[in-house]
């Protein structure tokens, strides 16, 4: 077995026992990236960190990759957009700074949909990432590069961000575990904003135990992020002797009539049985507002927030600019028109439209009120159940380059993930097995701040369902 095939906790134990060195891990992972990157294109930038420059800490010498919307001091950070040009941030995102201080070695910055807007990893100014299980298919998005990198064995874990499913959906498509933590659990400082009230940073890994290790490093209050909470539980200590006996696990009544691809429907049945066999009580909750209004609510808010967050890209302060414009208006227009991709432009225009004084009450304010109803509905549901089990997506991954002419139809595929962001809940995307060569994932959702219990439940699921294998990495060259 090659070292790149080992999971995070195995690498940590091996290093501690002196079975191999950090340099050997680094060499193995680097070789794996060299083998697969041409086929998968998971990275925007390869970095030149080495184990020799790593700090001493709990993750000393462990290679990692982070999504390219996380700021890295002195290292190009693009958010997969032309508009940031070769911008090198003068500071680190807190989540990355905590990993760096724990001794991680940065192998690269992962590809993504531009400004995290998309669910295929195809909306990138640097070209699409491909699914390491089948390179004709998308890896999901927006954190597709981070998920693909872990799936293909580039690194044992990576970081992504999740605004409406951007960790959970690619985790499911690529066959790894992905956690979208409770909003406020992980500092967003240094995360390039898309929808600030929805964005959250979280990890990808090939075992749940590895997610626990990463969360123990990156979670907790940060004075640089006023939305990160003090005094909240973030003990992610691994314990094999966890039980789900007597816990209630609900499916959503209103989702039961919706069509799912056969492997996903089959996985739902199988996982319900596994949980029932473990002593959990399978039940049902009703989320009528979520099922009918969450998609419209989410996109109204996300686009409105995106429009304000992306106003800062004006060609003056950051990245790409033009020098021969006649006047400031022309400069703004030329910089933004060239710098942003089609999906980003569409969302900016939509956000501008929804927040104009004549339409604001009808659309934006209404959406904030619908969000209140959605949060209340989840709060009531979590009075009746401990977890909610549901698909991550209704369908298996599509082909690279395929586009739906009706954008709203594509957005509806996010119904199972985006309500979690609207209510600020934690959601775990977990591996359930393979349908042919493709992995199938499902999602377990918990109440706010139940992230560690959610991962404990994930440990039980992994014990019964098995861990994912390393993807073949496409046509390895």
């Amino acid at each position, binding site marked *: 077995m090659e070292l790149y095939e080992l999971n995070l906790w195995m690498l940590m134990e091996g290093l501690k026992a002196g079975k191999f060195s950090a340099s050997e891990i680094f060499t193995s992972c680097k070789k794996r990236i060299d083998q697969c990157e041409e086929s998968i294109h998971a990275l925007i930038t390869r970095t030149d960190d080495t184990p020799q420059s790593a700090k001493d800490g709990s993750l000393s010498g462990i290679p990692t990759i982070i999504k390219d919307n996380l700021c890295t*001091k002195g290292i190009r950070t693009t958010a997969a957009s032309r508009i940031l040009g070769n911008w090198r941030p003068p500071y680190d995102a807190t989540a990355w700074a905590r990993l760096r201080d724990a001794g991680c070695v940065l192998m690269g910055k992962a590809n993504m949909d531009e400004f995290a807007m998309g669910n295929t990893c195809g909306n990138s100014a640097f070209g699409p990432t491909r699914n390491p299980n089948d390179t004709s298919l998308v890896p999901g998005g927006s954190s597709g590069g981070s998920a693909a990198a872990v799936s293909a064995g580039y690194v044992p874990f990576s970081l992504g961000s999740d605004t409406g499913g951007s960790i959970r959906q690619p985790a499911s498509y690529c066959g790894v575990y992905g956690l979208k933590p409770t*909003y*406020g659990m992980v500092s967003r400082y240094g995360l390039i904003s898309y929808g600030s009230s929805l964005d959250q940073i979280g990890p990808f890994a090939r075992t749940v135990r590895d997610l626990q290790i990463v969360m123990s490093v990156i979670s907790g209050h940060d004075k640089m992020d006023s939305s990160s*909470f003090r005094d909240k539980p973030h003990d992610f200590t691994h314990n094999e002797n966890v039980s789900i006996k007597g816990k209630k696990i609900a499916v959503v009544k209103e989702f039961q009539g919706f069509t799912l691809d056969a492997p996903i429907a089959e996985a739902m049945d199988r996982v319900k049985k596994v949980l029932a066999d473990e002593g959990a009580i399978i039940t049902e909750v009703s989320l009528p507002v979520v099922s009918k209004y969450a998609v419209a609510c989410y996109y109204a808010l996300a686009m409105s927030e995106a429009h304000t967050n992306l106003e800062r890209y004006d060609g003056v302060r950051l990245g790409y600019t033009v*020098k021969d414009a006649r006047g400031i208006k022309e*400069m703004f227009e030329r910089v933004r028109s060239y710098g942003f991709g089609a999906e980003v432009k569409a969302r900016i*225009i939509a956000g501008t439209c929804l927040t104009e004084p004549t339409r604001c009450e009808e659309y934006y304010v209404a*959406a904030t009120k619908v969000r209140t*109803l959605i949060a209340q509905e989840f709060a009531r549901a979590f009075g009746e159940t401990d977890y909610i089990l549901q698909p991550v997506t209704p369908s298996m991954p599509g082909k690279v380059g395929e586009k739906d002419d009706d954008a709203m139809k594509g957005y509806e595929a996010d119904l199972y993930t985006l309500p979690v962001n609207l209510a600020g809940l934690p959601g775990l995307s977990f591996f359930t097995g393979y349908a042919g060569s493709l992995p199938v994932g499902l999602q377990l959702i918990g109440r706010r701040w139940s992230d560690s219990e959610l991962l404990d439940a994930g440990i039980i699921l992994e014990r019964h369902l098995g861990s994912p294998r390393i993807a073949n990495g496409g046509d390895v060259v």
Partner: protein
Amino acid sequence: MNLTSEEVNDIALESRLLLTEEELAGAVRYINSFLDALQCFKELDLKDVEPFSFAEAIECPLREDKVIPFHDTDMIIHESEHVDGSYFRVPRIMEE
């Protein structure tokens, strides 16, 4: 209520975006389809519902009004592509 090409183009210009004819046609379809989808809000009685601000109460993050020295100015200058000596060089934004 569908928006016309002219209205969508005006909104794009407000966002400082110049659209090609093809982009504008796409944007008109996109915005109108999106606004149609948002009509569903009208089915709900939202009169007495408070707008969502945060999932739970959060303390107003006031900090002591204290200067914290910053010493890494050389690094910031070094990392920028738009530098003239020890200054940032930015495009002219004041017009004559």
